[in-house]
């Protein structure tokens, strides 16, 4: 999946509400509402800003948070991305 490009499944259909400890996002394309913590909100916002590969996303997150790229952060991102795809928030394509 690393080389796949991630993009929102329904660009322009997300409505966000922001709190200190997370966000609620309403996907008008599916009618579903999701609570995301700050980290998963961050991931989705980065993808919303522009399509990017998993590798680029991981690099951006690691650098942005001032961390070494690690297996842990890769696993956290991979898990979140799987959930996003299951919830039809994003899609990946070669």
């Amino acid at each position, binding site marked *: 999946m690393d080389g796949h490009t991630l993009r929102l499944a329904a660009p322009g259909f997300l409505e966000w509400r*922001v709190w200190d400890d997370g966000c609620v996002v309403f996907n008008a394309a599916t009618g579903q509402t999701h609570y995301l913590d700050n*980290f998963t909100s961050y991931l989705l916002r980065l993808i919303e800003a522009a399509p990017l590969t998993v590798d680029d996303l991981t690099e951006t997150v690691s650098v942005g*948070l001032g961390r070494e790229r690690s297996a842990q952060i890769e696993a956290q991102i991979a898990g*979140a991305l799987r959930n996003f795809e299951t919830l039809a928030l994003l899609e990946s394509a070669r």
Partner: protein
Amino acid sequence: MSEQESHEARDEGAAQARRAADVLRRRLVKTGIAAVPVIISLQSGTAWAISSCAGTTNRPTQAQLISKFGSFTGPGGPTAAQLQNQQLVTSLTGIPDKVAGSGTNDIESIVKGFSGTSGGLSYPSGPGASVETGDMIHLIVTNGSCWTSYCAGPIKGTHDVTIFADTTPSVCK
């Protein structure tokens, strides 16, 4: 919308997302990342709320999602006038009292739509309109001193509505 307008809207959306991402990034640098990132799909009967009380900073957290919801019938009734000021549920769990020593948190009223005003909230359709499947409604919860607004909908039937709270109580879409 012309192609150019479409491009401009898309670019503005991307810019907004980038700004929001940066806010989150700075927050995460301070707080760190949870061991297991959280994504929760809000089911019918769960709710978010933002208090209207001036100066209130004690917003409900994710842990205070509301799981109970009152019952009401689907298409054809009851009317907004009948629902207004009716206590449709005996209690909601998870909403903290905003004012120490105040009363319990009960639903004060459910009003369909967005016309007219009541307590500073706008409603598009006034009393007398029926609450129907597909409607958006406002839930007003009071603790006697402050009120909290939930934007709820669309109504799908008895016991079945998705709540989507708005940060601006007077706007519910």
